[in-house]
């Protein structure tokens, strides 16, 4: 990111030194601010629309593919099962264990599919904007996870038991308050904060990078011959960033789901 900023800085410098036409503007976080209806605090943004579209799309496709689920799967069901099993077996069952995992599969699968589609919106035309690059959406998802894992923990062990289980057994007595403090910070502040910021940060930065390379390449084309040639590696770099982002976007959806499952498992665990 810092490197990018540096690169952007030099580009600007070079462009400024050039005597040619227009001026190059490095992309700013403003590129994420896309109000459609209204303005100010209650404006409806483009990301909200795409988010809604993603929910609609996912609902329709997933219901259609699983409606006639049979013992011998059709091609569509087979595809659906592969996608579903990734969240069901690869995440929920592995993290939570075979005993309790089925109860949390719908939530984890919803999270995974929603985040994945909205992340991939960042590189799919005509959207070209990752929904999770707006902090409001990751926060909303984290609120759900946060409430769920605290709720099941307290429901299982009682309020006192939930706090008591945060401290592992067999520690010397004097260290327990410190561990308790650390664990409370982890459970109530660090976990939700990192969960939301990790997803947001990756999407935000990735989109900035892509916009930077694409806009720089496009700008170079309007300049002299040397810059026109320079636009070729820039566009190649942009293409590489697209592929890289596709991977990162998938990974972030996976990581978010995996960590959610791990927090749920931690709240359900009998011992630390």
């Amino acid at each position: 990111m810092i490197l990018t900023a540096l690169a952007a800085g030099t580009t600007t410098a070079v462009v400024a030194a050039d005597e040619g036409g227009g001026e190059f503007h490095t992309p700013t976080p403003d590129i994420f601010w896309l109000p459609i209806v209204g303005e100010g605090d209650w404006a409806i943004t483009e990301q909200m629309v795409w988010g809604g579209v993603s929910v609609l799309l996912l609902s329709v496709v997933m219901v259609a593919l699983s409606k006639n689920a049979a013992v011998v799967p059709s091609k569509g069901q087979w595809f659906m099962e592969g996608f579903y099993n990734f969240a069901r077996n690869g995440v929920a069952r592995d993290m939570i264990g075979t005993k309790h995992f089925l109860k949390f599969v719908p939530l984890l699968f919803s999270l995974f599919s929603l985040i994945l589609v909205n992340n991939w919106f960042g590189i799919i035309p005509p959207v070209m904007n990752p929904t999770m690059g707006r902090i409001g959406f990751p926060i909303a998802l984290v609120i759900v996870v946060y409430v769920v894992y605290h709720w099941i923990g307290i429901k299982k062990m009682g309020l006192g038991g939930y706090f008591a289980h945060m401290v592992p057994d067999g520690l010397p007595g004097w260290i327990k308050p410190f561990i308790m403090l650390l664990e409370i910070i982890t459970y109530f502040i660090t976990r939700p904060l990192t969960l939301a910021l990790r997803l947001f940060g990756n999407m935000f930065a990735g989109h900035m990078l892509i916009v930077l390379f694409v806009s720089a390449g496009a700008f170079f084309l309007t300049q002299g011959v040397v810059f026109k040639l320079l636009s070729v590696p820039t566009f190649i770099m942009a293409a590489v960033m697209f592929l890289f982002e596709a991977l990162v976007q998938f990974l972030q959806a996976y990581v978010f789901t995996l960590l959610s499952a791990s927090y749920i498992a931690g709240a359900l665990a009998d011992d630390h």
Partner: protein
Amino acid sequence: MQFTATASSVVSLATAEGAKMPLIPHIPELIFGLVMIGILYWVVSTKVVPNLEKAYEERRAAIEGGMEQAEEAQAQAQAAKQQYEAQLHEARTEANAIREEARAEGASIVTEMREKAQAEASRITESAKRQIEAERQQAVVSLRSEVGALSTTLASRIVGESLEDEVRQKGMIDRFLAELESGSVRPEKVGATAPAAAPAADQPAQGELDLGADGPAGRDA
């Protein structure tokens, strides 16, 4: 990374209208995010997951049913094999028993035959002995009378006196034979006296005397 972003957003805050710092959530988006996950969760948990889980359950049941069948078949094969083995074992035991019995029977037959043969042999021996004894007895008796007659004739010829008185004659012969048997009369004496008068009659007398000497010895044995 976030610092860079925040820093640039601070700059942008001054320029762009309506845009906030990236880390400040836009409240409609936050609410709409909750709505999105809520709707999707509802759809997934009521329409997608139950269908798929049902299919999984059916698949599991189908596979387990197949496995149960296979297990059953295996159990049947196992039972059949055990039965066959048991039968084989039984047959083997029976064959062994039969062989053992036959051997014992053969041995007993051999023993029995041997005993029978032994008995037969001893019976034959016994009867032969008895016959020999009887024949000997007969020979003794006939010899006795013959020797008596001979010696009487001989004596009467020698003495020239007819010993017609049978009682006396018999008594004399008996006394002579008794003496002969008890060994008081040596056969040589008879032989010594007899050849002079009747050499022809000497042979039977000699034989009779030999037999007579042998008789008690044979009986003793």
